[in-house]
């Protein structure tokens, strides 16, 4: 056993898969200890971008610091849109009599082009062929940029509760800063929020946890059924083999996903808990484990060590457990790993078409995908609502498959390169 473990951990593929899987596993284990909030709590709003959110009124109240930094450049770059920059470029190239074309093409950054335009722009320059609307557009743009440049800051006032008059509370200059750490009310959404305003990262960790549980349960159910039937059919043979092979073939011929859909929709919206869905997935995915275990058992059944065990008077269950099972165990472990991976994928598929666990108490990876699709996250550019989910699914099944390939190469030396 110890020797086999050593051998397994020498396989690079297995170790890579194991490390990825362990990382995911440790994350779902320790993250909930650090972040104790309810993963399904709706804190934000529809698809908020990833980032830290601070309270604006708190920022006014918080002690400010003067920091000598050019605040205009950043502000200009942020508030002059790409289209407006293009307008400036057009004006410089088409209407400006003085500027050289090289200067325009040299100005790559947003601030450079704004500066260049401010330098040459003149309201009085005749714009040939331009409509009045276009001319006014430039005037407005100039005013906007001037405003930003000459901003003196803000005066914050508040309505007095007694007199109803506005009172000045604070004057804010452009170079005043607050330390984010001083602000009492701030929320960080490292991966933004989903359509219900939930923190995607916290939800993702909880969903990965549930999905792994589903995969584990589905894989266990499938492997248990497949292993038991396979060993029985392979070792006992005869009529029992015929009956089991018939059932297995029936399940193989009808695509298991169809059966899965039928059972899932038959259970109804109220009846589908996450764990029940896992059992249903396990119940439809055992046939291939059964078939391969049966095939391996048949090839073992007439080996001399089994004959010797029979001659030693061992009972059927004992022969199956001590003389057959250990010989197929390495294969069964590999099949189990694949069953876990396919269980997670099946849940995601089912949930995507709306037949997954119907519960508002847990999130699964498939449900997160389903919600993102229903609220059209891809259309609104809210990548954070589905890309991390897709990546988690990919990482988990990739690591499990890698572990399986590594094990395969250790236990079937013929496959080693």
């Amino acid at each position: 056993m110890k020797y086999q473990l050593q051998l397994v951990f020498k396989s690079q593929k297995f170790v890579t898969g194991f490390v990825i899987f362990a990382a995911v596993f440790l994350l779902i284990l320790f993250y909930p200890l650090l972040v104790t909030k309810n993963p399904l709590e709706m804190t934000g709003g529809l698809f908020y971008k990833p980032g830290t959110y601070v309270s604006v009124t708190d920022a006014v109240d918080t002690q400010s610091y003067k920091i000598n930094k050019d605040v205009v450049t950043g502000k200009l770059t942020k508030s002059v849109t790409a289209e407006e920059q293009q307008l400036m470029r057009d004006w410089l190239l088409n209407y400006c009599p003085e500027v050289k074309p090289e200067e325009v093409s040299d100005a790559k950054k947003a601030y450079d082009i704004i500066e260049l335009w401010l330098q040459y722009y003149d309201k009085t320059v005749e714009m040939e062929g331009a409509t009045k609307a276009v001319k006014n557009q430039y005037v407005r743009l100039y005013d906007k940029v001037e405003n930003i440049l000459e901003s003196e800051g803000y005066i914050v006032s508040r309505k007095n509760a007694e007199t109803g008059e506005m009172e000045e509370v604070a004057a804010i200059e452009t170079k005043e800063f607050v330390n984010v750490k001083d602000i009492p009310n701030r929320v960080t959404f490292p991966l933004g929020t989903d359509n219900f305003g939930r923190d995607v990262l916290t939800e993702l960790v909880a969903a990965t946890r549930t999905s792994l549980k589903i995969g584990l349960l589905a894989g266990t159910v499938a492997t248990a059924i497949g292993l038991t039937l396979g060993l029985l059919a392979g070792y006992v043979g005869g009529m029992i083999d015929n009956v089991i092979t018939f059932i297995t073939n029936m399940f193989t011929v009808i695509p298991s996903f169809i059966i899965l859909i039928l059972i899932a929709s038959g259970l109804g919206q109220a009846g589908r808990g996450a764990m029940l869905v896992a059992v249903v997935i396990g119940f439809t995915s055992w046939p291939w484990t059964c078939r391969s275990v049966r095939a391996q058992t048949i090839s073992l059944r007439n080996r001399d060590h089994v004959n010797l065990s029979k001659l030693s008077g061992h009972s059927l269950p004992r022969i199956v457990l001590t003389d057959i099972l250990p010989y197929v165990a390495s294969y069964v472990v590999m099949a189990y790993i694949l069953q876990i991976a396919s269980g997670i994928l099946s849940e995601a598929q089912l949930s995507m078409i709306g037949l997954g666990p119907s519960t508002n108490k847990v999130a699964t990876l498939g449900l997160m995908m389903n919600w993102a699709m229903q609220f059209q996250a891809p259309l609104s550019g809210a990548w954070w609502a589905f890309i991390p989910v897709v990546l988690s699914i990919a990482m988990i099944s990739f690591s499990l498959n890698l572990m399986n390939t590594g094990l395969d190469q250790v236990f079937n030396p013929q496959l080693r390169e």
Partner: protein
Amino acid sequence: MAKSNEIFLGGKGVTKVYGFGDKKTVAVNKVDFEFHKGEIVSIVGESGSGKTTLAKMLLGLHSVTAGEIYYNGELRDIRSPRKKRAYWKGIQAIFQDPFSSFNVFNRIDTLLLDCINMRGQKNLPYDKKVELMTQACGFVNLKFAELTRKYPFELSGGQMQRLMIARIFLLKPRILIADEPTSMIDACSRATILDMLLKLRDEIDMTIIFITHDIGLAYYVSDSVYIMEHGIFVERNTADEVILHPKADYTKRLIKDVPKIYEEWDLSTV
């Protein structure tokens, strides 16, 4: 050991057919045989002649398609697991390939302890069991102290086959079916194994059914020889009769195929 005239294991019209229809193969075709108590019988034939199938049927590992097998003067009855267990107390086997005869997941102790359990001495104190195992290993020139807690694959082929004989020594069956026990072992160990088998027979008075493709070996060890070709016994007689005055063509060919020193090897039939 004087052989008695009592038929210990016999068969009438024993047949084994594999497959159906076009794929039908008759492995053993209506063979009759009588094995007497205390004798060494050899069944000789080329590969695929049905020797091993016959051995498996005698052991009760394969079912018999047609015919009857008699054991101890009565029709053999191994229909229930309990009766099978009782039958296997009297009949045991050594297989051809020592490397595949052991369950590689079990320690050697487990194998030998199983034999003691099968003898009905399950409740013996552990010291006594160790004594029995040491005695059995000593019989085949192995040291139990060195083997204990080892796995079968840590032994050499010769050691494994000797351990198989130690197992037989512990079980003390009345019939031993040795299915080519020396064919996977080098020539040096071969003689040792054979001598041990013969010594064991003298010690516990059992019948040995020796299955081999080596007619020279059969002549060396056996009292009577059965020659098998394509599932049929083409010749059966005492060893001297068969080797020195062969009647069937197949037997003559088998004897001719044994390489001899100072004579050119006839390869015409190969």
